[in-house]
Every structure is written in C-alpha cells, then in structure tokens.
C-alpha cells in the first residue's frame, strides 16, 4: 500500500507540471492586459510601460514561464499584479476561511445525505422519501447564487436571525463565527447534499436486493444491523467516489458562495484575479486546487481498499 501511495504521489508531479503549462498558456490567451485593467482610469502609457518592465511582463512568454517555474519550485509564487501582495501570503491569509466553509459544507452534506438517504431507501415511496426526492430535485436545480440571495432575503431580511454575510474568525468570537457560517454553509452544501442523498439511496436500494442481505435476514439479524453493517458499508463505494468528486464541486461552489456572502476566502480571490488577469495569483490558485483535487482522488482510492477488502493495490492490480 505504501508503495502504491508513493507511486501515485510521484505521478502527481508530471500532472502538476502539465497543469502549470496549461494554466500559464490559457490565462495569457484570454484577452485583456492586467496592467490596463488595474490602471482603471489612470491609463498613462508611460506609467504602464514602466510597470510592465518592472513586473517582467515585457519578456517573451517562455522566459516568463521559466522564471515563474524556477521561482515556484523554490516556494516563491511571486507577487500579485493588482495588490503587490506576495501570492503565498494572499492565499494562506484566506485559506482558513475557505477551509472552514468548505469543510462545514462537506460534513453537512455527507451527514444529512447519509441519514436522509438511508431513511428514504428503507422507507421507499413513503412521504419522507417523496419529500427527500423533491428536495433533491430542487437542490440540484437551484443555482447557489440564487439560493444564497433567497436565504439572505428570508433569514437575514424577513426574519432577522442570521447576518446577511461577512466573516468572523472562530478565535475572535466562536458564537458570532457560527452565526455567520450557517447561511453560506447551507448554500454551499445544498447541491452536493442532494447528489449525495440520491446516491446513498440508490446504492442502498441496490444492496437491499443482493443475496447477502437475504442471507443476513434469514440469519435473523436485526434490521438496523443489516442496514448499517451489511448494506450501508457495501453501498458506500460509489458514494465515496461521488463525495471525492464533490470536493471539486465544493471548491467551485465556494467561488460563488464567497462572493454572495463576502466571505474573505480563496474563492473570492480567484474571481477577482481571473477578472483582472492577475496571472501569478490565478496560476497559484489553479495549481493548488489541482493538487488538492489529486490528493482527494488518492484518498478516495485508499478509502476503497478500507471499505472493501477485495480491492487491493498491493501488486498494482485492483479487483
């Protein structure tokens, strides 16, 4: 297993390298000059020329790439073209907020999906199942920028129980931090919650029809044991796959959710940087999201082996 993990980690290197080339090329292909964009009204050609030279943007593209890569390998991701803040500082300053929101949303999505998904599989076609199906449909169909505004309208403006946005660090004031977290976490979790719930339900239903469940029933095991120990554990493989992919969806969703609730996270930084062609920041964010996505896939694969002992990576073969 260790060998497998090491090999997978090694394979991440060329993939990450390809990602850097792609991102570097794509962001520069998109129209717009970051200096002109950030100049706003102050578009003095002489000033722009001086800054272009100072930031190395007058170099040929391959030279710019090599320079960026050699610095990046040493851990220096450059400075933002817009704010002149070191990129690593900009990302790490915002990372805790995004991590807090993303993790809460993921946990919320998984826990609700497991409980409600299981209940609706067990009580198939009951009013609860129908309600859950309706929620799934709504959850997947509602874009989160709309859901976010809807929640603000209801819970911040009509019944004023939660703030309409903003962020308070846990270290500052735990209760206030939680109040601010509720609406964005629900907004972000809803879509993936719906998908996960659906997945739990259908793979459980699939498991219920298997022969080992009939055997377990014939042995006279209690229904709870059958569902949790036998059916659910076997049903989790596809669910884990989906959840792994949901991490990507949550990163994507955070970009919009953070905008709506002015949550000072990496998603908001990404949006600002893409719109303004802040090359160093966009490159770093995409590279880091690609790396975290690859890491998640690896974790998912390792989880498979734990969930189903028949899956083994020992000899590079999976059953």
């Amino acid at each position, binding site marked *: 297993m260790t060998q497998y993990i090491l090999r997978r980690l090694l394979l991440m290197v060329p993939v990450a390298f390809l990602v850097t080339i792609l991102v570097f090329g794509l962001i520069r292909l*998109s*129209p*717009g*000059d970051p200096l*002109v*964009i*950030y*100049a*706003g*009204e*102050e*578009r*003095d*050609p*002489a*000033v722009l020329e*001086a*800054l272009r030279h*100072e930031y190395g943007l007058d170099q040929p593209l391959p030279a710019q790439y090599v320079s960026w890569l050699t610095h990046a390998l040493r851990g220096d991701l450059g*400075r933002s073209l*817009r*704010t*002149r*803040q070191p990129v690593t500082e*900009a990302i790490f*300053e*915002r990372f805790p907020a995004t991590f807090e929101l993303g993790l809460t949303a993921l946990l919320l999505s998984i826990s609700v999906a497991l409980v409600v998904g299981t209940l609706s599989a067990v009580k198939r076609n009951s009013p609860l199942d129908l309600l859950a199906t309706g929620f799934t449909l709504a959850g997947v169909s509602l874009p989160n920028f709309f859901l976010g*505004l809807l929640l*603000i*309208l209801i819970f911040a*403006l009509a019944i004023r129980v939660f*703030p*309409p*946005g*903003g*962020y308070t660090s846990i270290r500052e004031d735990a209760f206030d931090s939680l109040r601010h977290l509720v609406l964005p976490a629900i907004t972000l979790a809803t*879509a993936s919650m719906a998908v996960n719930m659906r997945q739990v339900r259908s793979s459980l239903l699939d498991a219920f029809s298997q022969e080992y469940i009939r055997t377990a029933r014939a042995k006279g095991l209690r229904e709870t044991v059958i569902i949790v120990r036998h059916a659910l554990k076997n049903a989790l493989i596809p669910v884990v796959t989906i959840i792994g*992919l949901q991490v*990507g*969806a949550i*990163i*994507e969703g955070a*970009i*919009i959710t953070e*905008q*709506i*609730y*002015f949550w*000072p996270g990496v998603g*908001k*930084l*990404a*949006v*600002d940087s*893409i*719109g*303004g*062609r802040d090359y160093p920041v966009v490159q770093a964010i995409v590279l880091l*999201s690609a790396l975290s*996505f690859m890491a998640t896939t690896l974790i998912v694969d390792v989880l498979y082996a734990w969930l189903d002992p028949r899956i083994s990576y020992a000899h590079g073969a999976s059953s």
Partner: protein
Amino acid sequence: MRPFRLGPLVVLAVVGLVFVACGSGAPAPTTSGGAPTAAAGKPVAGGSVTFVLENDVIDFDPLKSRAFVDRNVHYQIYDSLVRIDETGKIIPWLATKWDTSSDGKTVTFTLRDDVTYHDGSKFDAESVKWNIERYTKTSGSQRAGELASVDTVEAVNPTTVKFNLKTSFSPLIANLVDRAGMMVSKKAFDAVGNPDDFTRKAFKAGTGPYMLTEAVKDDHMTLEKNPNWWGKDKDGNKLPYLDKITIKPIVNSDVRFTNMRTGDAQVANNIAGKDVPTAKSESSLVYQEKPALSFRSLIPNRAATYVFNEKRYVKAVSMAIDRKELLDKGYFNIGVVGYGTIAPSHFAFDPNFKPYEKPDPDGAKKLVQEVGKGPLTFELLITSGDPVGLTLAQIIQAQLKKADITADIQQLEFAKILELQSAHTFKGMTFVGWSGRIDPDGNTYDHVYTKRPFNDSSYSNADVDKALDEQRATADQEKRKAALRKAEQIYVVDDPARVWLGFGAAQLLTNKKLNAPPVYPDQIIRFQYMSMAAK
C-alpha cells in the same frame, strides 16, 4: 456528478463586477473646511459605524492608487495641501494660503504649524518636499502626470514651501486637492521598507482625522479616531466625533443594500438606482444626493477608416438621443442630463449650454442623408454580464431607431473592450464613464486633446487644443471659463469628440441614528463631520 471547472458564467459575472467597479461613476477628491452639518440634532462625541464599500481598497499609498474606491479611505487617513468644500470650491487645508507669482511659474504655500503625523513625526515644509518628490520621481508613480508641471520644490522655512513650475499650469492647485497633494509620513514609509508592502500596510502614515490601524484583505479595514487632529467644528469642538469606522468591502449591490436595511451597516455611498426608491422610503435610513463631477459618455472611434471618422455621424447620434428619457428609464433618475465634460459644480459650467435639449430624430436623419452614404449602422460595445449596461444600450438603440440609425449591440468582456479602446481599434462606439475631477481641465484635457491618454476616440481638433492650452496657462478664472466654454462648443457640437449623456450623482445613505455630513460632488464621505445623533 459535476466536473471541476471555473464556469464561464463565473468569469462573466466577475468581469461584470470589475466593470461596475471601474466604470461606475466615481468622482474626484476633496474635503471641506468649517464644519457643515446637514442633519438635525447636536453632534455627540464617540460611537462607531460600519461603512460598506463597493470594492476592496487596493492601494493605501496615494502614489500607487488607481481605483476610485481607494479614495474613500485616503480622505480619512491623509490630509492634502488643499481640499474642496461641498460646493466644489477649493479651500485651505494643510496649506492655509497659497500665492501664485505673476508669471504663474511659482506657487508658494503657507503651511499649518500644528500638524503631526499619526506616528508622531512632524508635518512641515521638508515633509511636503519629500512627498512631492516621491510622487514625481518614483518610477511607475500614478501621480507623476498630475504633477508633471512641477520642476522643483523648495522648503523655504518650516511653514513655507515653494513649487517651481516648468510652465504656468492653473489646474495644479485642483490636482493637489486629491492624491497628488496627500501627505505621507516619511518615517512610516521608511519603516515598512518595501513600497509594495507599504501600499497594503500604510498604518498610521497620514495626518488625517482617522488612522488606519488594521486591514484584512477582502474582509475589513479599521479606522480609529486621530485624537490629535487639528480640525474643529463651528462651535470649537475637536473633530472627528466618531471613535471608530469599520469598512467592509461588499461587491454585490443587493447585499450591500440589505446590510444597510438590516442595520448591520450604517453608511454607504454607492446605491444601485433600482434601490433608491426603497432607500428613500425606509424609515431607518436617510438618503441624500447631489450632481457629481462624473460624466457618462458614448465614445466613437473617430480615427480614419472607421465609420465615425465622419463627424456628422457623431452629431446625428448625439441629436437623436433623448437624454431625459435615458436618465429616467435607464438611470432611475439618478444624476442629471448633460451634454459635455464641464459638470454643474465646476466653475466653468454654463447652465445655458443645452445643445441637444430636445431629441431631434428628423434633424439626425437629414444629417445622415447629407453624408450620402446610405443609412448609418454601427457597432455599440458593452460589457457582457452587466444587465444595467444592456438596458441602457437598448434604450439608446430604440431612440436611434427613430432616426433610422441602427446600433448593433455587441457584448464583450470588459478587459477586451479596454484593450480595443486603448488600441483605438473598436469599430463603432463604446460606452464608458469617467469618475470626474475637481477642475474642469481634469474632465476635459486628456479626453479630447490630440493624442492624450484618455482620448479614446482618437479626436484631434487644432482649435480645441489651442483653447485648452490657453486655459491651462492663465490663472484668470474668467479667461479660463471663456476658453473652456469655447472648446466645449467645438468638441460637443461643431466637431463632436463624443456623445455625452449626462452627469452622475453623489449619493450618501446613512442610518437615522447618525448625523450625516452633507454630500460632496466628489462622492467621498467626510467622516470627520459625522456623529451619532444625540438621544
């Protein structure tokens, strides 16, 4: 199962936001003397407020600052040599008086002697010299252009400083109202070391009524009262009144407005037109508005080979547009109708200059026929993902239709439009505003003078250039007024450089619990005059 991607919608939305941030009306600088109070109730000292801003501040350093939004903070933490009052008139500030020599080539300022920076260092003539030289000599300085006329600065004695100019330049004093005249502590600047870091960490670096003590990117900024500020109100009480201002950047205007309605924020100065009726009727809020210095315009490409190289076409478009209808339906009646660059609060404004008061589609039709190349069709570029911009373009399109002029609306990313505009290669017209400057020269010169930086329409008219140079060279207000008006008649009517549509509005929305200061035409709030209302 959704793949990981940055949806194109997100990109469009972002660009829209950027456009709103850069394109929406934003004016110039200022501050006033005396201590005006607009709201009823005795001011009381103390209290804190939350101010919601339409974007995060990028540069606290006036030298690097490009975005209008930055000035909302600059005006609280820095003092300039001079400022404006709420009518737009230039008033003494750090400089108590100034004299221009008869040839206009030296300006001597007398400085206050009771001013210290937030870090304890003394403000004096040496400090002015250091600041102006930093603005003029640093590579990549955004202030270099505004101070281009300054040759050398001499500290005559601690309270006298002399500017030696290369040529006489009457708009200089107005330029010193804003960032080019803002004084930064050398000690605070040197302490940070790297100028790239200073622009994010300009803590306690000014002499202004508030000190920047904390700045968390995209989250909030904290301004604390400067207990040693020199300003006093009309009763002799020390200013400012409020102890603390928390500034939160919120890009989405709906969310910003919601925060005002729930009372989570108490001050805002950028309210979407559609929300203004609600803002006026909400019992917990006070809405104020006055015409700003910012203008709204359509920019034709007048370069050779492009359709608007023909000046009669530009004039036909200008004649066919119903500016009143556009203001009412497109801008929710926020702002005023206008025809050129000189705004109502500028000294050179001519209230009788109304060349296109009534739309004249028939006159426009005749003008197009006179050119004799068939019907006029052109491409109108607007920013994609900006519903307000699209509505405005559609209203214009419908108005032009009455004159048989076809505006073909094309939506592009804001970055792409800027690129085309800077390269002077857009086909028809673009739709871009200007935040406004205190002196009419700042609203005009660089926009219409041959080959100047903001002359995106590639406009060139020798008579306009001559008149604009004349008004720069004389300090005589009446002569300047005459030259500016003469030029405006040409670049608006006789040989139009653009199609100007009107002026924006300076807005101020405050919670009832506050005594709000008056609104300034530059849209920037004077927090030193704001206080909690006595109970």
